[in-house]
């Protein structure tokens, strides 16, 4: 039998990992083995969370009452009529005390007379987890958690989760990296990048000496400021932007919410038509 010190287990549980060297584990064996060095003392053993966690939770009283964030019921759900969960088979009953009810909410919101409630019927929200968690009273904090040999030898399921669903659309079209590569292959291109409206760099090939993330941060700002001017002049929205810095030509396209920028080599013209075709490919990335 192994008597795991509560403190050591607690530290591991907070990290989501219970890993101890054999040397340490040996010191916790009961009855204690003969004092001697083992050649395997340095080996790290991972204890199964699925065995330890339930016992730890039962011993620690980790579900003790705490203050909770609350939101004024006067604010309705904004999203409704979404698919409702299929009826689930009744879970295996677990003995648990009554649910925790917190008396003192931490954050409350004043009523909102000017708030316009949504007319659509509001779906019944899933009950927050916290409302369903049973409180267990701390009883033996500091006591060791006893694991039997049977626990340690348990044949634990080793299910490796199913592949993450729902991302196939990511693979349908050329990736931003491929689009940038296409632009670079045109010739006369010094660099190209794709950025989001808040300046997030998605993909880019920028020569050394330039910071691609900085360029990505400025591209949407350059475009939006010129676009703001064209709108204020009642010329309409900007469709693309061409400018030169010294002898280096630049071109910025906005495709939906995505910015595609390319710049040429000093004194050489950009293949603008080809770049426009490449930029248009980004539009296909929208679902």
């Amino acid at each position, binding site marked *: 039998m192994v008597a795991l010190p509560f403190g050591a287990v607690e530290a591991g*549980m*907070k*990290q*989501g*990992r219970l890993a101890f060297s054999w040397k340490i584990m040996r010191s916790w064996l009961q009855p204690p083995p003969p004092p001697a060095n083992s050649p395997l003392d340095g080996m790290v053993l991972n204890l199964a*969370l*699925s065995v330890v966690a339930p016992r*730890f*939770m039962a011993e620690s009283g*980790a579900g003790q009452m*705490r203050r*909770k*964030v609350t*939101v004024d019921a006067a604010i*309705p759900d*904004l*999203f*409704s009529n*979404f*698919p409702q*969960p*299929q009826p689930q088979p009744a879970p295996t009953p677990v003995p648990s005390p009554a649910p925790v009810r917190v008396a003192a909410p931490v*954050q409350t919101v*004043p009523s*909102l007379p*000017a*708030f*316009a409630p*949504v*007319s659509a019927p509001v779906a019944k*929200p*899933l009950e*927050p*987890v*916290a409302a369903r*968690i049973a409180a267990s009273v701390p009883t033996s904090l500091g006591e060791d958690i006893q694991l039997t040999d049977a626990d340690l030898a348990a044949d634990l*399921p080793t*299910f490796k*989760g199913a592949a*993450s669903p*729902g*991302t196939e*659309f*990511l*693979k349908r079209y050329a*990736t*931003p*990296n491929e689009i940038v590569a296409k632009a670079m292959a045109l010739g006369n291109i010094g660099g190209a990048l*794709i950025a*989001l409206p*808040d*300046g*997030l*760099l*998605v*993909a880019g090939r920028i020569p050394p000496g330039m910071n691609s993330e900085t360029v990505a941060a400025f591209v949407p700002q350059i475009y939006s400021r010129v676009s703001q001017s064209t709108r204020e002049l009642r010329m309409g929205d900007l469709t693309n932007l061409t400018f030169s810095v010294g002898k280096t030509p630049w071109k910025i396209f906005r495709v939906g*919410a*995505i910015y595609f920028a390319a710049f040429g080599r000093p004194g050489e013209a950009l293949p603008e038509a080809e770049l426009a075709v490449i930029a248009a490919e980004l539009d296909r990335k*929208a*679902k």
Partner: protein
Amino acid sequence: MAIINQATKELQVKIVYYGPAMGGKTTNLVQVHDHVQTAAGNKGKLVSLATSSDRTLFFDFLPIEAMSIKGFKTKFQLYTVPGQVIYNTTRQLVLRGVDGIVFVADSQYDKMAENAESFANLEENLKTLKLNLADIPYILQYNKRDLPNVAPVEYLEFLLNNREVQVPSFTSVAHKCEGVFESLNMITRMLLSKYINQNAGQPV
């Protein structure tokens, strides 16, 4: 930080879905985009931007045209971050200007360490942006509850929701759209609460 456009009477907030790799962040956004019901033209296109090994999602939409707070339409921008550890710079960039966070945890026992690391990473990245998680509305979503090797919710709460103030948390099966909108509804309500509190007594 929420953007308040006085000219267009719009309140725009940014919600970031954060969490370990393969935890279901992308699936959450796909489900929201597929099922959210808005007036015609008020749902932005779901934009998927993927590099060869990285991925980042971005889309924005105006959920309900009639929805107004003190005359302001609300517009939400939903982002995911790449969960892979090596893309921390990207995660920091996506977190810029964040208003609310949905932390999508993977409920499987063997993902507990990744959950804890990702949550710690979130706090660290917020600190680099001079932000404090305690000041940002966030919720926890315990995903993949349909898998057989999931940890009990009590342990997930101990692992991720063990602060002085307990935030709302939801179980989910994102690929079946279970818990997805419940989470989104809660974070948007929390954001609106914060906005209302901040603007209480102020003329808008």
